[in-house]
């Protein structure tokens, strides 16, 4: 009986001591800063890439040392970012209500393999973070959004981004909306003129120089090197090192072919 008491006492003491030590522990993961969490995501991403490289190397090796009748391992086309997207989604929830969630949501959208998950990530950004400057990172994605999700969703996303208080967010949306007209509309027509006016106006107020450069580049391309333009001359050397110009062939229909044998 006495032994039992002692034992119980020890257990009690032990558990108290353990509690003392362990007490701050469950708190610490929640306290990790957004920067630390993003580092974790980057590490996971790197791991996915390293794992993939290893599998590819192994598959190459198995193909090289193939034994007759033995199957050669398949080569995955890209790393499996599923776990990265999952962890990013956990962190996004952790920072819910704060704009710190946006980079994690962006990761989910970029890396999730599931369309519904991507869509939900975008919806959350539009609903809760529409004025966050971070949302401008979606800009580069907008062009492929109709392929990623569907055309209606892409259109409504751009419309909603136009209501952001952030000039870059609005600028990216505007550029994505008018991009097709800049590329293809009749250059003397109203559609082209309207699109050009709209994106150049956006250019004046954006802070993202990458965006401004893309806008000016698209217009420059269309007005110098696009259909309807008088082609700039090309002066260069041929494969034997002999100088010549494209305009040497003026007077003929020219089929200019950008090619390579890689």
């Amino acid at each position, binding site marked *: 009986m006495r032994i039992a008491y002692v034992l119980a006492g020890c257990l009690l003491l032990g558990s108290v001591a353990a509690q003392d030590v362990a007490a701050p522990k469950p708190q610490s993961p929640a306290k990790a800063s957004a920067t630390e969490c993003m580092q974790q995501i980057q590490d996971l991403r790197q791991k996915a890439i390293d794992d993939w490289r290893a599998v590819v190397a192994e598959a190459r090796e198995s193909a090289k040392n193939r034994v007759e009748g033995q199957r050669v391992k398949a080569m995955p086309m890209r790393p499996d970012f599923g776990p990265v997207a999952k962890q990013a989604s956990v962190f996004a929830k952790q920072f819910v209500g704060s704009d710190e969630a946006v980079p994690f949501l962006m990761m989910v959208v970029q890396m999730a393999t599931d369309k519904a998950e991507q869509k939900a990530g975008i919806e959350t950004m539009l609903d809760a973070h529409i004025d966050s400057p971070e949302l401008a990172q979606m800009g580069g994605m907008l062009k492929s959004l109709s392929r990623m999700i569907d055309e209606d969703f892409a259109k409504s996303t751009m419309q909603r981004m136009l209501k952001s208080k952030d000039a870059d967010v609005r600028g990216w949306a505007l550029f994505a909306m008018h991009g097709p007209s800049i590329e293809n509309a009749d250059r003397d027509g109203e559609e082209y003129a309207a699109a050009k006016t709209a994106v150049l106006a956006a250019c004046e107020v954006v802070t993202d120089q990458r965006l401004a450069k893309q806008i000016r580049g698209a217009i420059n391309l269309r007005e110098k090197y696009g259909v309807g333009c008088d082609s700039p001359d090309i002066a260069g050397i041929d494969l034997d090192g002999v100088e010549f110009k494209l305009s040497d062939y003026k007077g003929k229909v020219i089929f200019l*072919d950008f090619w390579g044998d890689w």
Partner: protein
Amino acid sequence: MYPHERSLVEEMKDKPFALIGVNSDSSVEKAKAAIAKNNLNWRSFQNKGNGGEISKDWAVAGWPTVVILDENMKIHYRGHDGNAATKIAEELVAKMEAGNK
């Protein structure tokens, strides 16, 4: 793409038509090997031959890219569809020949 272009050059050799390449291979040797191997029959600029980079000036974002110019060097097509490009080139040539008659 090679056989199509090669046949086009052969077919149009007596017409007001020129196929000019801009070659982006990493070396002249590589380009010349491709020419020898595939019997390629057109003249090409070296993409980086003159200090600059032609494909960069032209903002070429995908290969192959084809541009069709009329006899005054006005651009009529720019894109990646060899058949569409050829059709436009043929129409322009036909128009020139009709005008000369």
